[in-house]
C-alpha cells in the first residue's frame, strides 16, 4: 500500500550491498511477503494467484511446443501430431497447453465476476480494472491466434470467419482484413504471422500483469466488504504466510481439476473437427469458436436486423466489440457509493441474473440460431402446387397421408406439386440470444448507472474488523 513503509532489513553483506544498488529483494519482500492484506479475503480472491500460475504454465509449455512446431500449412498439422506421438512427453506438454487455455479462461471469468460482485473496479481501483480488461483482450487475441496453429478445419475456417468480421468495419475494414491475412486468403503467410504473434502476446500479457499487480499494490486489495482498510493492525495480515498458503491450497485444488482434463479428457473442451487437416474447399457444418468465446459469438449472431444505413453484419460486429468495450467503461457506469454487492440487495439479484445471462449466451453461441428451444405446436406439411390449369397455390396439412394424397392427385391430373415442412412457430436460440444480449447491455448501461442512485444499501459495516466480529456474533444479520 502507498502508506505502507518498507519493513525489509538486509542482513548479510551481500544483501546490503545489493539493496543500495538494486533494491529488488526489498521490492519482493514488500510486495509478496510483508504486504498487508485484508484478513477477510475468501476463496474467490485466490483466482489472481491461480491466474499467474496459468500464465506461467502456458508460457513454459508454449515455449517448449515452439521447439517442435512447424509454422507451415503443409507441415503444421503433422508437426502437432508428431509432438503427440514422437516427442518424449510431447503429448503431456501439448495436452497441458491445450487444456491450459481453457483453464486460463475459466479462472479469468471467475476472477472477473468476483471483481464485478465486490465492486473491485471502483475508485481507487479503476486503473487496476482497466489493466485487467487489457489483459483479457490480449488473452482473447492470443487464444484466437493459437487456435489457428494446429491448422485443422476449425483453425482455418474459424480464422476466416473472425478475419471477415473485421471486414465489416467501415472504411478501414478491408485494409485490416488483408493486412491480417497478408494475401487473398488465410494461407501460409497468415499462419506464419499468427505463430509469431502468438509467441509475442503472452509476454505482453506478462508485462501488463506486472502493471496490474503494481496497480493493485498502490491502493491495496479490495475485500468482500468493500470497505477500505482503516487499521492495518486490526484489518490486515501480512501476505506471507497467510495468503501464500491459502492461494497455494487453492492453486493445487485448481490443478486437480486441470489434471483431470489433461489425463482423462484432453479433447473434450476442444472441437473434433480440428483433427481434420485444414481444407479451404470444405467448410465444416458448424463453425463454433472455443467455449470461452461463445457468449460473444452469440451476441454477434443475435443482431439479425438492419438499423438505418448500418447492416446486420456491421451491427453484430459493433455489438460484439461493444460487449467488451463496455467493460472498460464500467468504473464510471456504476454510480453506487457502496462497493460490495453483499450490501446491495437489489443489485445483487441483477448480478446473479447477469451471471446466468452470460452462461446462457454461451449456450446460444454453441447452438444453431434457428433451432427451437420451445416449439409451439407441431411442424406442418405444406403442399405447393401448380394445377393443370396453371394456377398456383398452397395447402397446409397436419397429417402426411392426406398431404401425399393431395400431391398425387395434383400430379395425376397433370399439375406439379411438392411437399415441404412448415416449421411450427418456436422460441428459437436467435430470440433467446437477442433477449440475453439486451440484458447484457442493459445491465451495464441502464441497471448499474440508475440503480446506484436509487438503491438503499443494507448493513454495510464500518470496518473490516467489525465485519469479522459480526460474522461470528449470533445477533448480527446474515451478510450472505
Amino acid at each position, binding site marked *: 500500500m502507498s502508506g505502507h513503509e518498507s519493513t525489509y532489513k538486509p542482513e548479510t553483506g551481500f544483501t546490503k550491498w545489493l539493496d543500495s544498488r538494486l533494491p529488488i529483494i526489498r521490492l519482493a519482500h514488500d510486495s509478496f511477503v510483508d504486504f498487508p492484506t485484508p484478513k477477510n479475503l475468501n476463496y474467490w480472491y485466490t483466482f489472481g494467484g491461480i491466474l499467474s500460475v496459468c500464465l506461467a504454465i502456458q508460457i*513454459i509449455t508454449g515455449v*517448449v511446443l515452439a*521447439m*517442435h512446431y512447424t509454422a507451415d500449412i503443409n507441415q503444421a498439422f503433422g508437426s502437432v501430431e*508428431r509432438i503427440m*506421438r*514422437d*516427442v*518424449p*512427453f*510431447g503429448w*503431456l*506438454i501439448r495436452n497441458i497447453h491445450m487444456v491450459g487455455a481453457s483453464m486460463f479462461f475459466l479462472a479469468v471469468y471467475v476472477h472477473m465476476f468476483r471483481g464485478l460482485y465486490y465492486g473491485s473496479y471502483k475508485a481507487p481501483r479503476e486503473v487496476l480494472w482497466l489493466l485487467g480488461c487489457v489483459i483479457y483482450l490480449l488473452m482473447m487475441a492470443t487464444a484466437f491466434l493459437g487456435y489457428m496453429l494446429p491448422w485443422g478445419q476449425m483453425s482455418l475456417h474459424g480464422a476466416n470467419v473472425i478475419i471477415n468480421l473485421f471486414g465489416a468495419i467501415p472504411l478501414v475494414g478491408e485494409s485490416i482484413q488483408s493486412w491480417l491475412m497478408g494475401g487473398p486468403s488465410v494461407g501460409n503467410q497468415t499462419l506464419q504471422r499468427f505463430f509469431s504473434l502468438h509467441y509475442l502476446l503472452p509476454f505482453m500479457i506478462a508485462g501488463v500483469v506486472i502493471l496490474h499487480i503494481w496497480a493493485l499494490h498502490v491502493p491495496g486489495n479490495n475485500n468482500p466488504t468493500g470497505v477500505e482498510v482503516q487499521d492495518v493492525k486490526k484489518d490486515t495480515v501480512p501476505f506471507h504466510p497467510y495468503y501464500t*498458503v491459502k492461494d*497455494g491450497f487453492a492453486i493445487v485444488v485448481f490443478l486437480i481439476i486441470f489434471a483431470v482434463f489433461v489425463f482423462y479428457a484432453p479433447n473434450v473442451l476442444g472441437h473434433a473437427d480440428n483433427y481434420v487437416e485444414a481444407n479451404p474447399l470444405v467448410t465444416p457444418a458448424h463453425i463454433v469458436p472455443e467455449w470461452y468465446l461463445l457468449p460473444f459469438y452469440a451476441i454477434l449472431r443475435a443482431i439479425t436486423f438492419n438499423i438505418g444505413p448500418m447492416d446486420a453484419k456491421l451491427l453484430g460486429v459493433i455489438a460484439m466489440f461493444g460487449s467488451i468495450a463496455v467493460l472498460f467503461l464500467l468504473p464510471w457506469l456504476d454510480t453506487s457509493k457502496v462497493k460490495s454487492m453483499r450490501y446491495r440487495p437489489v443489485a445483487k439479484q441483477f448480478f446473479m441474473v447477469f451471471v446466468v445471462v452470460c452462461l446462457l449466451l454461451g449456450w446460444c453461441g454453441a447452438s444453431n440460431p434457428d433451432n427451437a428451444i420451445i416449439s409451439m405446436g407441431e411442424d406442418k406439411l405444406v403442399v405447393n402446387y401448380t394445377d393443370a390449369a396453371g394456377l398456383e397455390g398452397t395447402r397446409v396439412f397436419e397429417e402426411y397421408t392426406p398431404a401425399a394424397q393431395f400431391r398425387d392427385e395434383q400430379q395425376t391430373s397433370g399439375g406439379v406439386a411438392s411437399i415441404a415442412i412448415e416449421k411450427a412457430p418456436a422460441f428459437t436460440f436467435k430470440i433467446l440470444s437477442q433477449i440475453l444480449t439486451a440484458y447484457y447491455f442493459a445491465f451495464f448501461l441502464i441497471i448499474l448507472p440508475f440503480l446506484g442512485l436509487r438503491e438503499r444499501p443494507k448493513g454495510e459495516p464500518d470496518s473490516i474488523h467489525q465485519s469479522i466480529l459480526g460474522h461470528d456474533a449470533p445477533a448480527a444479520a446474515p451478510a450472505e
Partner: protein
Amino acid sequence: MSASNETAPDHVDEERRDFIHIAAIAATAGGAGLVAYPFIDQMNAAGDTKAASSLEVDISKIPLGGEIRVLIGGKPFFLRHRTPEEIAAAVNTDASKMPDPETDEERLMPLPDGTFNPAILVTSGACTHLGCVPVGPAQGSVGDYGGWYCPCHGSHYDTSGRIRKGPAPKNLPVPDYEWVTPALVKISL
C-alpha cells in the same frame, strides 16, 4: 506443575505445525522436481529422429579406390573401397608411433562369418578437430598419407582414417556398424 502443563501443549503444537509446513514445502518441491523431468526429457531425440538414425548401405556400388558419403541423422559417414596398395599402406605402418595408436584391424567390423573384409573401410566423416568434413579421393586431395585431408586446419588422415599430422587429436571414429550380408552394411548412430 501447572505452568509446565500450560506450556507443554504449545510446545507439541509448535512441533506439529513445523512438521506440516515442512511436509507441504517438501511435497511441493518434490512435485516441481518431477514436473521438470518431462520438460527436460522432451529435448531428447524424438521417436522419428531416433528411427532415422540407422541406414543400410549397399557397398557393391563403391568404385575401387573411391568412396561414398552418406548422411545418417544429418551426420556424414565415409564408406571407402580401398585398393590393395592402400590396404597394405594401412596395415604395414607401425601404429604405435601414431598420435592415436590403433591397428587397421581394430578399425574394422567382422562379417557375419567372423572374417574381415579389409577392402571396405567405414568411418565417421567429421574431422575430430572441430568437426569439418575432410576431403578425399573424389575431391582429388587425399593428404600426405593417402587417406583424407581436412582443409579447415590441415589435418592429414591415412588410408585407415587415422590421424597422422595436424591439429586433430583422434582418428576418424568408426561408427557402430554391422554387416547384414557381405554386400550390405548397416550403420547406426
